[in-house]
C-alpha cells in the first residue's frame, strides 16, 4: 500500500476533502460533500487565503487507532483503520524539490500545522495542531507548545495548542479536553505523559458505575479525578461561591500560562453541559487599559484601607477582554467573552454560562490564586510597610516557574542591576507567584514599577511566610536568611519591562 499526496489551495479545501472522503474512505459523494462542507469548511474559512493544503493518505493516527481497536472494530459496520493527514503551508511548495535540503530549509518555516481526517462520518475532524500564524485573525496570546510531526517523509514542528473534535462515541467534549490538556503538558514538561481515549476510560473505570462507551460525557469531579491521576494537583472553582472574583481568577490562571478546563452549562432550565479549554486571551489594547475601573473589594477591611489611604487600586484581571478557547465543536482558537461564552453557537445555547473551571496545577503548588491575590493586597495596604498615601496601582498577578522568571530577568537590560542580582541570588522554589505593580500609563508601555514574589509551595500565610521578595516605595523587602523576619533595604527599583514568557503572541510588540 503506497501513500498518495493530494494538493490544493485553501480556496479549494472543501472540494479536496470531498474527494479524499470519496477516494480514500469510500464515502458516498453526497455524504462526502455534505460532511466536508459542514465539518471542514468552518476551519478552512479561518485560514489565510495564501495557504496550501497537502493531504497524505494511509496515515496511522495513534488516537484514532486507539479508538478503533477499543471500540469501532467491535461493530458490525466496516470502519477503516487509516486516516488522512492534511498539512498546511503558507505559500506554495514545489514538491519536486522537497528532497533538496536547501529547498527544505527554505520552506520549512512556512509550515503551519496539520489536521487529521478520521473515517468516522460525520465527525471527520480528528486531532490537529494549527499555528496561530495560519489564521486571518491572530491578535491574541496563548499557551502553546512545540508539536513534532512530519510531511512527505521529513520531520517538521509546529507551535500550537492541540485540538480535536469529538467523535461522540469514544470521546465526548469532556474526554477531548482531557486528551488535549495532557497532549499540551506532555509535550511541554517531562513530568507528564500523553493519554489516549482508552487510557482515560481505564483511569476512570475505578470510580465509574456504568459502562463508559459509547461515551455519555463526564462529571466535573470525574475530570478532576482523571487529571489528578495523570499527575496534577487539581482545583475546582464554582462561580456562585466566588462571585465577582470568579472571572478574575480565570484571568489570573490564564496569565500564568495554565490552560483551564471550563465547564459551561444551562442547568437546571436547559440540558446542555459542555467542556472547553481556555488557553489565552486577545492582545490588550491601550483603550482596554483606559477603560479599566478601580477595583471595589468585597472585603470591607481592604476597601476601608483603600478609602482611608486615598488609593486607586486596579486589577489587571478585571480588564474586559475576549478569551481564547479550544472548543471541540469549533475550529481552534475560538474567541469569546467569559460572560457570553456560547454566543457563536446556535440560539438554544445562548443561555449557557461558565459555572465551573478546573485548574490543572503542578502537584507541589500549594498556594493558590485566590489566597495570593488576597495576601498581596492586604500586605500592601495593611502590612508593616504600607503603600504611600494616594497610591495609584495596577496589579498584575501570575504564576511562573522560577527558572523561567530568572531566565527572563537575567537578560533584561532595563532592570536595575543591583536589584536584579539580589533576585537572581535568591533561593526560589520551582514555582513562584509574582505580582507586578504598575500603573495604567506604565502598563501601556508594558512596564511596571514594583514587584512582589511569593513562594507557591508555602500555604502557611502566618507571619508573611510566603513572602520571598517585595520592591515598592523605593525599598526592597526580603526574608532574613536564618532567623526569620523581614529585612528592609533602601534601594529604589526603576521602571522595568513586564514579564511576558507565560503566553505567546504572534503580533504583539
Amino acid at each position, binding site marked *: 500500500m503506497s501513500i498518495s499526496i493530494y494538493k490544493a489551495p485553501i480556496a479549494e479545501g472543501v472540494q479536496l476533502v470531498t474527494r479524499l472522503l470519496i477516494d480514500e474512505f469510500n464515502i458516498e459523494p453526497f455524504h462526502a460533500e455534505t460532511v466536508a462542507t459542514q465539518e471542514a469548511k468552518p476551519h478552512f474559512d479561518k485560514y489565510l487565503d495564501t495557504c496550501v493544503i497537502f493531504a497524505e493518505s494511509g496515515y496511522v493516527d495513534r488516537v484514532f487507532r486507539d479508538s478503533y481497536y477499543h471500540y469501532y472494530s467491535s461493530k458490525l459496520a466496516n470502519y477503516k483503520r487509516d486516516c488522512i493527514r492534511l498539512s498546511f503551508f503558507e505559500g506554495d511548495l514545489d514538491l519536486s524539490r522537497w528532497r533538496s535540503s536547501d529547498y527544505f530549509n527554505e520552506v520549512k518555516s512556512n509550515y503551519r500545522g496539520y489536521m487529521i481526517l478520521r473515517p468516522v462520518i460525520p465527525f471527520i475532524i480528528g486531532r490537529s495542531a494549527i499555528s496561530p500564524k495560519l489564521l486571518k485573525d491572530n491578535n491574541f496570546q496563548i499557551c502553546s507548545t512545540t508539536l513534532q510531526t512530519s510531511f512527505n517523509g521529513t520531520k517538521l514542528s509546529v507551535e500550537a495548542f492541540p485540538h480535536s473534535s469529538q467523535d461522540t462515541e469514544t470521546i465526548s*467534549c469532556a474526554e477531548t479536553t482531557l486528551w488535549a490538556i495532557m497532549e499540551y503538558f506532555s509535550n511541554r514538561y517531562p513530568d507528564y505523559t500523553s493519554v489516549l481515549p482508552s487510557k482515560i476510560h481505564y483511569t476512570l473505570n475505578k470510580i465509574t458505575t456504568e459502562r463508559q462507551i459509547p461515551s455519555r460525557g463526564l462529571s466535573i469531579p470525574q475530570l478532576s479525578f482523571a487529571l489528578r491521576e495523570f499527575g496534577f494537583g487539581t482545583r475546582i472553582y464554582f462561580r456562585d*461561591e466566588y462571585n465577582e472574583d470568579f472571572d478574575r481568577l480565570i484571568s489570573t490562571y490564564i496569565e500564568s500560562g495554565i490552560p483551564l478546563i471550563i465547564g459551561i452549562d444551562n442547568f437546571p432550565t436547559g440540558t446542555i453541559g*459542555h467542556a472547553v479549554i481556555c488557553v489565552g486571551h486577545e492582545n490588550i489594547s491601550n483603550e482596554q487599559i483606559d477603560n479599566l475601573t478601580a477595583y471595589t473589594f468585597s472585603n470591607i477591611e481592604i476597601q476601608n484601607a483603600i478609602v482611608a489611604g486615598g488609593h486607586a487600586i486596579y486589577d489587571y484581571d478585571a480588564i474586559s477582554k475576549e478569551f481564547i478557547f479550544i472548543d471541540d465543536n469549533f475550529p481552534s482558537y475560538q474567541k469569546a467573552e467569559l460572560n457570553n461564552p456560547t454566543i457563536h453557537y446556535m440560539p438554544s445555547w445562548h443561555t449557557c454560562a461558565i459555572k465551573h473551571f478546573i485548574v490543572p496545577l503542578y502537584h507541589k503548588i500549594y498556594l493558590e490564586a485566590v489566597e495570593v491575590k488576597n495576601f498581596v493586597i492586604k500586605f500592601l495596604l495593611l502590612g508593616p510597610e504600607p503603600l504611600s498615601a494616594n497610591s495609584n496601582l495596577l496589579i498584575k498577578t501570575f504564576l511562573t516557574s522560577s527558572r523561567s522568571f530568572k531566565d527572563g530577568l537575567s537578560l533584561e537590560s532595563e532592570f536595575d542591576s543591583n536589584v536584579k542580582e539580589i533576585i537572581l541570588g535568591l533561593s526560589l522554589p520551582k514555582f513562584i507567584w509574582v505580582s507586578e505593580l504598575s500603573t495604567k500609563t506604565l502598563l501601556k508601555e508594558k512596564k511596571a514599577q514594583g514587584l512582589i514574589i511569593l513562594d507557591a509551595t508555602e500555604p502557611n500565610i502566618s507571619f508573611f511566610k510566603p513572602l520571598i521578595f517585595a520592591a515598592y516605595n523605593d525599598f526592597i523587602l526580603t526574608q532574613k536568611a536564618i532567623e526569620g523576619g523581614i529585612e528592609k533595604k533602601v534601594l529604589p527599583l526603576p521602571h522595568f519591562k513586564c514579564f511576558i514568557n507565560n503566553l505567546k503572541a504572534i503580533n504583539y510588540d
Partner: protein
Amino acid sequence: MIERINKSEEIRAELVREGKVSFLDQPEHNEAMLKLNEGLLEDRREFKVKEKNSFTAASKVILTS
C-alpha cells in the same frame, strides 16, 4: 585559586555600610503583622468553605455536549 562569588552579599554589605539596611521588628511592625495574620486566617476559613461548596456543586454537573 578557589574563588567564592556572591553578588547579593556584596550589594548588601555596601548598603549596610551606607546605613540603608534595617529590620521590620519594631512594635508597630509587629502589631501590623499580628493584625494581618488574624485577617488572613479569617479569610482562609472563608476560602475553605468556598472550596468545599465548589466541589459539591460540581458533582451535579455532567458535561456531554
